[in-house]
């Protein structure tokens, strides 16, 4: 998030209040997230962590390592594989789970994948509903998970700004935004009836900038796709489309090498790259300061209808 430049203002401020020694905002966010991770691990019978391989998931995974140290992470990781994830993401995922010794579950909606579901054959709305939402609900039901961590943050999107840290879902996995449980202090209501579940968002109060700063400070590994390099892309005006899936190409369209990177990671057909020279984390942070668009501006699925994220969440999406 951009930072207000107000040097004159801060200099002119008299020290009306004595500054006291304080914890930095990242330490406070870290402490809050660890508290949430421990609460869930202690209060639910079968929690699981949704691991999407992106930067937020990477931070969440590190926080889980910290929360239970020196004991291992007491729940498995679950990846919903749509079949359209970048190859680099999948190899990163397997290596990460192996190196930290976490149990990794992968779930795919095989029937829909076999039927040739893709965002061009269908529309993005129905594609997401089958490959993401349906797969997620099937996986949660199959394993009987009663709590699932997600890396979503409230600053990402305006319906997420209304989300609780413990987000109650009915037995169909649906979110009712008008009937959410009040959430006061750091006292979370973990009570559910059989079949109901809670989605938990330990990074609720983090911003995109916080996430990158934490990755920098903590030296957390992230997928190479976040860093700028020459990549083959279909270039359509301002849009850069990854060439991973052949159905993305228009007739007679040929890809070109462009120095670019991905700002957020999703399915390759629906995630545009941005032109960038940022090839280190400090460079990404510097670039972030200059951005005038939100990180999800390149995510087609957020813009397929008015209030589209809210509708997807009501249906059971994260």
């Amino acid at each position, binding site marked *: *998030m*951009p*930072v*207000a*430049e107000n*040097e004159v*203002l*801060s200099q002119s*401020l008299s*020290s009306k*209040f004595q500054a*006291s020694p*304080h*914890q*930095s*905002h990242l330490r*406070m*966010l*870290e*402490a*809050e997230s660890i*508290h949430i991770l*421990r609460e869930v*691990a*202690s209060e639910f019978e079968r929690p699981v962590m949704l691991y999407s391989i992106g930067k937020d998931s990477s931070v969440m995974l590190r926080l889980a390592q*910290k*929360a*239970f*140290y*020196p*004991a291992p992470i007491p729940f498995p990781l679950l990846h919903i594989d749509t079949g359209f994830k970048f190859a680099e993401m999948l190899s990163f995922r397997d290596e990460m789970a192996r190196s930290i010794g976490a149990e990794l579950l992968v779930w795919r909606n095989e029937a829909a994948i076999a039927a040739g579901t893709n965002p061009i054959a269908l529309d993005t709305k129905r594609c997401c509903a089958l490959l993401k939402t349906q797969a997620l609900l099937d996986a949660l039901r199959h394993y009987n998970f009663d709590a699932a961590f997600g890396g979503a943050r409230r*600053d990402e999107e*305006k*319906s*997420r*700004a209304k989300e609780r840290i413990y987000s109650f879902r009915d037995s169909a996995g649906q979110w009712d935004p*008008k009937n959410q*449980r*009040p*959430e*006061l*202090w750091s*006292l979370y*209501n973990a*009570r559910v009836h059989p079949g109901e579940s809670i989605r938990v968002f330990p990074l609720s*109060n983090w*911003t995109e900038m*916080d996430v990158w700063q934490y990755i*920098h400070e903590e030296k957390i590994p992230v997928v190479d796709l976040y860093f700028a390099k020459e990549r083959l892309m279909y270039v359509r005006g301002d849009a850069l489309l990854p060439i991973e899936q052949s159905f993305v190409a228009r007739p007679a369209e040929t890809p070109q090498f462009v120095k670019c990177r991905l700002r957020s990671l999703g399915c390759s057909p629906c995630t545009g790259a941005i032109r960038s020279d940022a090839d280190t984390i400090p460079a990404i*942070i*510097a670039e972030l*300061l*200059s*951005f*005038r*668009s*939100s990180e999800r*501006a390149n995510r087609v699925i957020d813009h397929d209808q008015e*209030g589209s994220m*809210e509708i997807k969440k009501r249906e059971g999406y994260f």
Partner: protein
Amino acid sequence: MSAMITPAFSIEDFLERERAKDLLRFSTAGSVDDGKSTLIGRLLYDTQSVYEDQVRSIEGKGTTAPGQIDFALLTDGLRAEREQGITIDVAYRYFSTARRKFIIADTPGHEQYTRNMATGASTADAAVVLIDASKGVLLQSRRHAYIASLLRVRHILVAVNKMDLVGYDESAFRVIESEFTSVLEQIAAGTGNPLEATFIPVSALAGDNIVHRSQAMPWYKGTSLLELLESLPSSQDARTTPFRFPVQRVLRPDHTFRGFSGQIASGVVRPGDTVSVLPSGRSAKVKRIVTWDGDLDEAAAPLSVTLVLDHELDISRGDLIVSADSPATVAKRVKAALVWMDQRPLDRRRRYLLKHTSHAVPAFISTIEHRTNVGALTREAADILRMNDIGVVSLNLLRPIALDSYRENRSTGAFILIDSETNGTVAAGMITAASSQEAEGGADDVYAWGPVTVGEREARWGHRGGVIELAGPAELLDTIERSIFTAGTVSSRIDADHEVFLLHPDLLAIVTGFATQSGLLSLVMRANYEDVLSVHIEGQRLTHNANDAIGAVAAVHQLLHTIGIFIPSEKAGL
């Protein structure tokens, strides 16, 4: 923002400045017409915390004049909110300035959303209360200030908005300031929580005094709203309060390690500290403070850590590890202020789960002491509490829990009630008093606190009150006072030869009487030029050679111990 990416911009400098930033949480409340969304939208927009695509997505869609951005659309996240032009639920927003990161809990203002206001205030360090300058002080502003005070939000920033509609007139502002100041005084008296209020004349629509100081109101000499938010002290006074550590989880990866994980609710802990585990009351010493990043020499609230103790104690989730010097109260009967949050009214026959720190105990509500009329700021008798009602009740718990009053500790003094049938969160509670286990079955109304008791003062100060009369050379008296102070006592020095005592001989006994009642050690000093120190404490006399300063000081301390001024630490506070 492109200005920042100049050759002079150094990412390392930027990151260094970021590390120095702390976090301030504040709440706002208001409805569509008092300009709350506009105010927040303005704060976000003027601190460049919204992105162009977010502005584009709402441009030309609102109800404002052409070319203007309807900031309310930036903040109202749900479709129903945008369609109906109302705010339904708490939304959290984030922005940062060069000095600080901010989290806004943005809540609706209408009475039916009292519960949302309480939710937003529960984690806030400050509250921005809006008053529409063209309408004056309305019920909604009172309600927000009352809830903020009840939830112990100390700093109230009163934004008198829409100053443009009253011609930026100073007298309109002053009338509201004086009226609302007396409302706030009444509120603070009612809730017992002190408030610090600052009034700022603003126009959110025009941007006056929101981020930048306004040219339109030269009569206003104060800072802008944002400058004020940047300079408020954050909640980290938790350092100076006694150590409280609710155990979330016992970590036992193998037979060599047994640690207790939790987030420090208040205070500081160091290896070597003696702690008690409540409710059992057993004590141990802290051996290690374990984190993934290595062991710590000291940890303060709100860090999440894992404690290893020097010997095996039976500790489980929900236990409270506390400083042995100032333990919490263990109680089965609790008196608390409640904000009722559920469609189903309070039912005294119903069993609720009281969730407090990291545990939940079954509880019944035995009596409703009163309901607060937030409009009139009066108490009224009530048989029932309905949704959005605020009242004070007594609860009986099925098991004792370790707690503090909410006034003393916002973590260990707070709880929620969960309906054990519907699983809904039905109420938020703030403990005002609790009866210790010993009092159970005895005098029902004997609460462990309310007025501060002798025991509480002793627990905090480590000694009881008393009067020490000393006569001797001035230099030796100074040395003795210093040594008694260094020993950690709370003492007051009284010069017995002061003319006020010569004129009113009875006054000395009155003054020392009050001081003793307040738990202070009164040092009544009479300086002379003799070679002998004489000491008189509660009928015990002592004389000592004044030239042997070290021996004299030791003798005074010995006498204090002999007569039992200092209380044994294992007894402290229980």
